[in-house]
């Protein structure tokens, strides 16, 4: 059923924002191929009339009381940031240069 190529792994790694070195792609492709073969077993059951289940406890629109409470200060929220500037998270550039 499955079979996953090195190009597939490279593409998925890009989607997941993980830079996998080229010399490791084959290893991941082999392991993921074996795992996909095993999990393909889910197709062996007849589920034509079975609804999907995303969660063990069916709940919808759960809200807590809308009362003001104590929340983190800006300093606390920024305390674990790798880079901070002017009380904000400093991030690498998000647009290509002109």
């Amino acid at each position, binding site marked *: 059923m499955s079979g*996953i190529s090195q190009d*597939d*792994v490279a593409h*998925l*790694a*890009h*989607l*997941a*924002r*993980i*830079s*996998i*070195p080229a010399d490791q792609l084959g290893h*991941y492709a082999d*392991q*993921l191929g*074996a*795992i*996909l073969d*095993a*999990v*393909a*077993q*889910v*197709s*062996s*059951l007849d*589920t034509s009339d*079975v*609804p*999907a*289940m*995303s*969660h*063990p*406890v069916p*709940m919808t629109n*759960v*809200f*807590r*009381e809308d009362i003001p409470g104590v929340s*983190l200060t800006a300093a*606390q*929220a920024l*305390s*674990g*940031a*790798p*880079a901070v500037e002017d009380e904000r*998270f400093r*991030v*690498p*550039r*998000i647009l*290509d240069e002109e």
Partner: protein
Amino acid sequence: MSDLIRKDASELAGLVSSGEVSAVEVAKAHLDRIAAVDGAVHAFLHVDTAGALSAAAAVDAKVKSGEKLSVLAGVPLGLKDILATNGLPTTCGSRVLDGWIPPYDATVVTKLREAGIVILGKTNMDEFAMGSSTEHSAFGPTHNPWDLDRIPGGSGGGSSACVSAFEAPLAIGTDTGGSIRQPAAVTGSVGVKPTYGGVSRYGIVALASSLDQAGPCARNVLDTAMLHSVIAGHDPMDSTSINSPVPDVIAAAKRADIKGMKVGVIKELGGEGYQAGVRSRFDESVALIESLGAEVVEVSCPSFPSALAAYYLILPSEASSNLAKFDGIRFGNRVGDDGTKSVEQVMSETRAAGFGSEVIRRIILGTYALSAGYYDAYYGQAQKVRTLIKRDFDAAFAKVDVLISPTAPTTAFKIGEKLDDPLAMYLNDVATIPVNMAGLPGMSLPIGLAPEDGLPVGLQIIAPAMADDRLYNVGAAIERELLAKWGGPLLAQAPELAGA
């Protein structure tokens, strides 16, 4: 005072509240034990000596002033490093969070602190709770106190090992597919995964949000029940938290009477693929349950053989989404930000450097299972299988009060034995996974040593949702008989650790 480390949590709480022993003495005895044996066991990633002593001193001050104490006040505990702790490192066993200090406490941690439970430190785990051996921790494996060359189970191997090595009488774990129960089984301790929604997930780093549940670990059923009662209950900060009363688990642990109960043996969990000594101890437990006046019947759950496959689609799918936040932007480590690279490049380098191979495998797998074109065949199909598993449980519980099976197919294996074979590793959770898929409560109880290797075997007990008390009633009844047979706790048979 080294005999303090051998005492049950309930005994320690009694000694502290009566003023016979101070909480500081209890904390010091356990900190000394950690200093003596944790070099060999490596259950802890971080020991908070100052915090533990100060929490213990606060309990002693309350004893002096005659203030009412909660059931476990002054008792030390090991906390899995997946729960956010204000001012204490929280790594999830991952390089990507190495050095991160959360600015808030998880709800479970708040409840522990309010109860006067003394947090000794943070325990080791497979990175982001992905594994069954604790070998996937970025900070090195934890060793099983029964045999230091063997795994303590996972992902919560640090929590099970600290309890079974007498470094702490209590620990908190989290269980997504067996990460409390399988470590309990292979270390001869007790572990409970409560009903999904029974314990708040707020402040617990999410692996698979529809499966994760925190729970108690201890050396006997009553201590486990007491810790369960402290951490359970509705939390408005967790939208999946169940808003109904917590079952009286302590009363159930004290009742220990299963006369007239109906107990189901799950046909599909056991037999082929299960170690001979696991099967023989399980069969003995079945006979013991019958001798206590319960009726044992076999029940069939025909979709369970597909549960492992469905789990390894649902878990990676949810994890690939949950772990997207570890991108080096708002917290955690950032790699490669030299001023020339784009945010995308920096994120990709950060995640490659921060995640271990098992985490990368599961993120890629989840990304694949959720991709357009594969979604229906993989993730969608797995969700339908999940419904079938729940229906199997519903049908079984129409006939019986609790279900039982072995907790894990084998005893503790050697460190390194399955590290390069992910599929072999995944099989450790074959009996525990269906319980998470349906959101049910489950316990692992030590039932003896496998004759062929002398290592602990666990019995899994499963109850319907929000009937967690049944686990404790059944577990305590079996435990009472086994303690009489063994002449004391199973852990008394574990070898002395060097340096102790």
